[in-house]
Every structure is written in C-alpha cells, then in structure tokens.
C-alpha cells in the first residue's frame, strides 16, 4: 500500500492580477522508503503542491480547488488543523531552503530539537534533550554536546541546514519533505548534505520527497523522478528511465540545455586577437508560461518544437509511455522517440523561436 497518494490535487491563488493556476490535477503515489525527486522551475508548482498538502499555503489567497492527499488512509486536505499539526513534524518531517528563517534565533538548538519531539508527546523533556545530542551526532555535527547548547547564529550555513535536518528527522518520520533544501548552500556543503541524506535514508528507512530545480541533485539521490511544468506533471518514472529514455520534450530540452559534463571535454584556450567559435548550449526557446493565463493545452506546447496541433488545444493525460520501463509515465500527445527520428536536434519551427 502506498504511503502517500496524491489524487488530482488542484491549487489556485486568487490574486489582484487574476487566478494563478499553481497546481493542476497532480496525481501520484509514493511507496514507503521511496525517494522521489520533484524537478521544476519557478512557477512549476513543485513547491506549492507539497505546501498545500501540508496545509502550509496562506488561505486566502491560496485555495485547494480539488483533489485528495491520502496519507496512511486519511485525507490530509480535509483533516482538522489540530490533527494535521500532529502529523506535520511527527510523521511527515519538513526541511526548507533557508534555515535562518525556519530556526528560531532566540532559542538554543537543543530547545528547538527537544520541542519538536516533546510537542508530539513522544518523550519527556529530559530524554528529549539527550536525544537532541544524538540527533546532532547523527547529522554529522562535531562536538554535539557543546554545539547543542548554542544558538543558530553560532552555526555556519551548512551546520544550520544540518540542524534543520536533525529537527526534520527528530521524530523518525515516515516521510521527509525537503524543499530546495540545498539550493542556498555552497556546492561543497551541498555535497556533504546530500551524502548525509543518502546515509539517513538507509538508517531510518523513511520515504523522501526532494524538491529541486537541479537535475544533478536528483540524479544522485532519487529512485523516481517527477518533472513538473506549468503546475502539471510532465513526466514521471524511475530516475534512469527519465534521464536515459526521456519522453517529455521539456525534460529532454532541460537535459540538453545543460553544459556538457563529459570527462575529457576540452575547450580550446583563448589566444588574444584570435576569435574562436565556442559551442553554444542547446537552449529552450521562449519563457515559462504566465500561470494566471496558462495555455489551454499542454503548458509546454508554446515552447515545444515537437508540439502537434492537439498539444496546443488539449491537456494530455499522464499515462504509461509506449515501450518504456513500467511506471515511466508521460503527459504528451506527441511521441518523443518517434519525433526525434525526423527532427533529432529539436529544430524550432519558425513561429516558436521568440526570445525569452
């Protein structure tokens, strides 16, 4: 039985400038112990969809326009706030991007971790404090006995993020949700945190939803990858399948637009006065859609060189991709492998080439 089932989740924001179609018909299931990487850019709905299932979007302007989120047999969306609060932090841990705004600056780290545990009635204050030291040790903070009595400002950025993770996993949740948890960190610190997460996942056996815009991060961390765009899931499947047998034109475009990381890739050195042509990146034309006025069909259609006439007018359902790995789903009216046979570089039809 899945740990989490999201069914047709639809979220709207009513703003002065119109209704933002933030999340539309998002449907998926998460198994116990599974790590799901959710990839998308700003406005894709990747963060809003988890915030809304946790009751963390401001209402108004936010509004759940439809759907269910079943966690351990109960719908989180219709649950009274008091009960949801008991699940949040206890059974579902959350880590956000900026630990400085999520940690309380006037409380010691010990107090904050202990509070996370005792507020759910799991243990006494005294044993919770002992547990705080264990948790700091678990997330790799040196001298946890000393560190636990300090305040957040005495921690470096990487250590604050580790402290946030300690709070996130304090109650040994069944599900940990991380929203751009390493985005603000330097690349070396990010690497340490990602290693820590792989290690914790093994030790604690929890499921994870890791939300990021970075394809590299999910490549190393996720069992399954879900690519979102314009409030919808464009593609979902086992990580290797999504990366190596890509079915959505958006995923394909994103992966292609990244600089070539191949080893041994050598560029010529600059010689003054001698202009040498450098290769260009394979860019996706156009800009992300305005979600107050989303395209009527596939949200990526206006930028998609493979879009068919139907893509522009009708939203494609998310279904098993043809001749793909089981569970590899795509929302597309076009067939990407077939389209690539006739247009291998995704050459842009003249009309779609407008700059972003």
């Amino acid at each position, binding site marked *: 039985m899945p740990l989490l089932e999201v069914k047709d989740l639809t979220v709207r924001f009513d703003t002065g400038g119109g209704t933002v179609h933030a999340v539309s018909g998002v449907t998926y299931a998460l198994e116990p112990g599974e790590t799901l990487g959710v990839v998308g850019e700003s406005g894709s709905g990747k963060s809003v969809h988890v915030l809304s299932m946790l009751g963390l979007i401001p209402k108004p302007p936010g509004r759940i326009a439809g759907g269910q989120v079943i966690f351990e047999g109960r719908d989180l969306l219709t649950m009274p706030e008091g009960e949801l609060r008991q699940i949040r932090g206890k059974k579902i841990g959350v880590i956000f991007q900026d630990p400085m705004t999520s940690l309380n600056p006037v409380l010691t780290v010990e107090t904050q971790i202990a509070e996370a545990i005792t507020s759910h009635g799991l243990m006494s204050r005294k044993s919770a404090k002992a547990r705080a030291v264990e948790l700091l040790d678990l997330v790799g903070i040196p001298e946890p006995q000393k560190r636990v009595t300090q305040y957040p400002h005495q921690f470096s950025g990487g250590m604050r993020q580790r402290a946030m993770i300690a709070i996130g996993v304090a109650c040994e949740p069944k599900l940990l949700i991380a929203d751009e948890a390493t985005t603000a960190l330097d690349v070396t610190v990010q*690497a340490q945190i990602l290693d820590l997460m792989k290690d914790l996942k093994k030790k604690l056996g929890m499921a994870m939803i890791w939300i990021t815009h970075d394809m590299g991060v999910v490549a190393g961390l996720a069992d399954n990858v879900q690519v979102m765009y314009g409030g919808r899931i464009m593609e979902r499947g086992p990580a290797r399948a999504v990366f190596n047998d890509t079915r959505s034109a958006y995923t394909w475009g994103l992966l292609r637009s990244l600089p070539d990381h191949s080893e041994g890739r050598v560029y010529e050195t*600059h010689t003054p006065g001698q202009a040498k042509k450098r290769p260009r990146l394979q860019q996706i034309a156009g800009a992300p859609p305005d979600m107050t006025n989303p395209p009527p069909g596939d949200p990526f259609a206006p930028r998609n060189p493979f879009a068919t006439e139907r893509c522009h007018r009708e939203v494609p359902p998310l279904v098993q991709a043809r001749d793909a790995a089981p569970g590899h789903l795509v929302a597309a009216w076009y067939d990407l492998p077939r389209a690539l046979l006739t247009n291998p570089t995704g050459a842009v039809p003249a009309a779609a080439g407008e*700059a972003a």
Partner: protein
Amino acid sequence: MNAKAAPLLRVDGLTKHFHTSKNLFGKPTHTVKAVDGVSFEIGYGETLGLVGESGSGKSTTGRLILRLEEPTAGQVYFEGQEIGKLSSGQLSPIRKKLQVVFQDPFSSLNPRLRVGDSVGEPLQTHGLVSSGSDKRDKVAALFKQVGLDPKFMDRFPHQFSGGQRQRIGIARAIALGPKLIVADEPITALDVSIQAQIVNLFLDLQEELGMAYLFIAHDLGMVRHLCHRVAVMLRGRIVEMGSTEQVFANPQHPYTQALISAAPIPDPDREALRRRIPYDLVPPPPGAVLREVDPGHWALSAA
C-alpha cells in the same frame, strides 16, 4: 615588460579588509580579509571565470575593479592606466569601457523608468545621442542585439520575465561599447530553462563585439562552458588559476579538487560513480604563494 602590450585589465595585490567590530576607542578589533592580495590579468576579448564559496571574496573583487568599493591596498590597471586614484571625472571615460551585469536584473533596473529609457540612459549621460529619435533608434538596435523585440521599449521592468530583464540589463551594459563586463552571478537567479539562453547571448555578444568578461559564478558547469581561464578563490585568496582545461582536467589545489568533485552530474549512472573529495574549509596558510605548475597554470602552495 616593455615588449608586451599592457593587458586589458591587470589587478595587482588587490586587498580589502572589513572591520567588523571596534573597541571603545574606535580601533578595529576584528578584521575580515575579504580580499587578500589578489593578482590576475584579463586579456582583450577574454573570459576569466571567478569561482569559490560564498564569502570567498569573488564578488568583492568584482566590486573593487568597478570601484564600487575602495581597496585597502593594491592596484587596478585598465588598459595600462591605474584607475584607483582617478577622480570621478577622470574615471568617466573608463566607465564607458568597464560595465557591469548584476545577478538580479530586477533590482538593478529602475522600476519607474521605461526599459528603453533605462537602456538609453548611459548613452544620454555620455552625450552619445543627438536627439530623442536618435536615442530610440540606438536603443532599438541594442534591443535587437540582445534578442528583445524593440516594441517592448516602452514597457516597465515588472512586465518582463527574469530572462528578459537580464537581457535588458545586458543591453544597458553593452550600450557604450565596453571592453570589459564584470558579470556577477548573472544566471544564478534565472530559471533553469532560461540559463542556457543567457549564456549563449554572452557568447554571441563576445564574438560580435570582442568584449572581455569577468564572469563571477558558482555553477562550475557553466563556467567551464563559457570561460577561457578560471581563477578559484578561497577565503580572499586565489588558490588556483589557469586555462579552463588545465584547472578542470588537472586541478592542483585540494580545494579546487574538492569543488570540482562536489558538483552533481545530471546523469544517474555517472553520478553513482562520482567520488567526492572532502576538504576542510581552512584558510590558506599566510606564507603560501602561487607557483606555476604548468605554463599559465598556477596553484597555491606553502612557502
């Protein structure tokens, strides 16, 4: 040195100390060496990438070159002329040749000014337009050059997407025909699907106009793609510098090795094989100096 023409930019022993606290008598008690004796050159038409952790001093180095901050010590030579001592009047002709592109195009554009006026402003300041219609024509040409439709000239910054705003910022930066653009994290705030467009625009403009870039960034993949040479900064010092292929294929300093090995690879198979080289972020020892390990490839090592 006489036989060799002066490089476009030469930075010599550039140093910036910030005093973070003072004692009762106003004497500094705690000093942060944000930039600590940095020296490098940039040739005409060349791109130098400056990478490092936050707080490594890479942005401060850019600001010192632009004279947005005054250095504690060291010199900046632009086309052979030291610009540190110039008055703002003397600096004016150099400002034309030395421009900047910031990370967040939204905060660097005046929200109340039509974007065409923002782009045309430097032309007006330097007396390079003869009339209103001449300005419009020149701005329209700049818009086309950065891939924007000139009909958007009369709109305001908030009516544009992040990528379009960065194009406007770039149009403004190239308006005066600069020789060097300091680009401080110019793609960091952009959506992933837009980053490649802007990197390509930087490459196109360099080819057309022959500008040099100081490209300050933390995305090593993009730096590797865009830059001819790379300098790696750690705690205010350059720990390694060389051609892009020297630094990426044969990193010498342990910090460079750690940095390169830490970057995640967007490929599950190769990512599974990636081995991270750990590095404790200790500042380089005070006596350490840059030594040439290969022609043009320098790495910091103990004295």
